[in-house]
């Protein structure tokens, strides 16, 4: 197949890129080695969160959040998005001071979406929170959506706009000749395009490596839990300041607990293995903060593979080693919220060679250079 743009990777970011490219009138083919949304794009926690992000991600996350609030206009489906707010809970006075400093720093930088709250306000918002909680940080317009439904909605919208999606087509070889990429796939198909987009998630560095671009991408198999259905007791998505945890209750009453404890993944097979001791640690943390869970049952546990980078922000930008290649991968367990905006950025890079969004901190060649000074992210739960 000969198209304008080939996108490698059929997760949310690949589908969003394909949608934005197709809507600009260009032919686009998505190659997915497995199935659409095989890993992070269907197995993440689905957090739609600007709260606590790395400062470099904030402008993109804020722009993307606005898109989430009108997501049905973009993809014809509400993706089960709920505006619930996200709250980061402080468990000590020192943690509350850290959150207050963060809110002040964000305001000084011109962002007003994070608000420190005291213990009384926290308890009003989270009546079931444990007594030792000292306060928190809230982003009231944040929420959550269902990842698999969201990715399928982007897929349908992309296909409606003219994109072609090919599953079971892993890229096993690529060359660039005379301004054209030539890709050979595991299903025997071959494809050419002048522009290539790498949204291969945890597998993204393999594609980069094949064209001589070494990016220090690792991967994690982040684990998640669903409890049995419980009566409603928490509305916002909850994270902690000093411990990895994300926590939310679905409309069905089931409570999802994730946030960073890892199983074992295998990039060659795609298989994951749970780690029961670490699941137990997640359960202990959740129980510390929400004692109401003491009578719940764990009904499901799973893991999905996510690409992660040493500075915990993604690689987004044009390749520095070869022309005609755009990278957008390594979202470190918190790329779901960025999905809507990232497709537009990738489309700009692929079709215009530049974007008006501030992506310099995500440059593929930033590794090895001295780290930029300034504040980082708060502890960010995966998903």
């Amino acid at each position: 197949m000969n198209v304008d743009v080939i996108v490698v990777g059929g997760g949310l970011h690949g589908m969003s890129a394909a949608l934005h490219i197709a809507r600009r009138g260009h032919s686009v083919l998505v190659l997915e080695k497995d199935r659409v949304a095989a890993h992070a794009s269907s197995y993440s926690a689905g957090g739609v969160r600007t709260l606590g992000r790395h400062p470099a991600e904030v402008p993109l996350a804020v722009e993307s959040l606005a898109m989430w609030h009108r997501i049905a206009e973009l993809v014809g489906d509400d993706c089960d998005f709920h505006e619930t707010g996200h709250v980061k809970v402080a468990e000590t006075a020192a943690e509350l001071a850290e959150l207050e400093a963060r809110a002040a720093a964000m305001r000084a930088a011109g962002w007003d979406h994070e608000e420190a709250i005291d213990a009384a306000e926290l308890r009003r918002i989270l009546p079931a929170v444990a007594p030792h909680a000292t306060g928190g940080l809230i982003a009231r317009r944040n929420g959550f959506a269902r990842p698999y439904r969201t990715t399928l909605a982007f897929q349908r919208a992309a296909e409606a706009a003219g994109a072609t999606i090919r599953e079971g087509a892993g890229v096993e070889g690529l060359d660039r000749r005379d301004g054209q990429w030539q890709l050979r796939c595991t299903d025997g198909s071959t494809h050419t395009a002048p522009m290539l987009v790498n949204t291969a998630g945890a597998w993204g560095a393999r594609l980069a490596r094949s064209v001589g671009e070494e990016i220090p991408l690792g991967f994690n198999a982040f684990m998640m839990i669903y409890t049995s259905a419980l009566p409603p007791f928490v509305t916002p998505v909850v994270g902690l300041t000093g411990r990895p945890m994300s926590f939310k209750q679905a409309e069905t009453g089931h409570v999802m607990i994730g946030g960073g404890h890892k199983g074992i993944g295998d990039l060659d097979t795609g298989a994951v293995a749970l780690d029961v001791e670490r699941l137990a640690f997640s359960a202990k943390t959740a129980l510390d903060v929400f004692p109401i869970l003491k009578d719940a049952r764990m009904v499901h546990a799973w893991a999905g593979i996510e690409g992660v980078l040493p500075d915990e922000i993604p690689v987004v930008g044009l390749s520095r080693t070869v022309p005609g290649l755009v990278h957008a991968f390594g979202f470190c367990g918190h790329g779901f919220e960025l999905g809507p905006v990232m497709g537009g950025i990738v489309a700009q890079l692929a079709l215009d060679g530049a974007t008006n969004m501030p992506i310099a901190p995500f440059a593929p060649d930033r590794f090895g250079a001295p780290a930029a000074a300034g504040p980082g992210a708060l502890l960010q739960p995966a998903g």
Partner: protein
Amino acid sequence: MSGLVILGAGPAGSAAAAILPEARLIATAWHAEPGRLWIETAAGVEAVPFDRLLLCADEPLLLLALGCAFADGRPQVDPTGRTSQPGIHAAGAILGASTAEEAARQGRIAAQSLAGLPPEGVLAATPLAEPEAPGRLDPLSIAQLLETPPGPARSAGILAQAALRGPRLSSVAAPARNVGFAALAAMAPATLTPRETQADTGTLA
């Protein structure tokens, strides 16, 4: 202590235990991983190590978690009950034995094989009709399915989801049975060293 474990205290498990008196007999487990079964008792959550396992209870999700191959809704076994995974056998209800007598006969055959004795006959799984999968479910829908009472319908639904996913993401079916949240939390260590990010130096397929 590793060793031989028989899971399932029905006719097959009981018959097998009579031939394998050194085996630990347990009624059921909520999760399995290579070399360990996870059980929940009044005392809490406990890991039961094994190097050989005979699974007799109708708990196919445990064998799925152990990576055993399935066909026609049943674990694939040879005439002595060996599954596709070394050291793991199956007999009785898990293979669709329709009577207590047949389950006990299968349990004896599998136990004789594990004991190194000549089996008195052969066993085979009874095929199930492959259920229609409703399409891939997301984790919340899988949780709702796993929350339904254990039984053939629940197992068939989860096996269908696993078949849609292929051998990857075996955790789609986990755990085989639900477990008390507080009991699970109680076995957590006081502190936990974070697992390092896994490195990758691989190349394209």
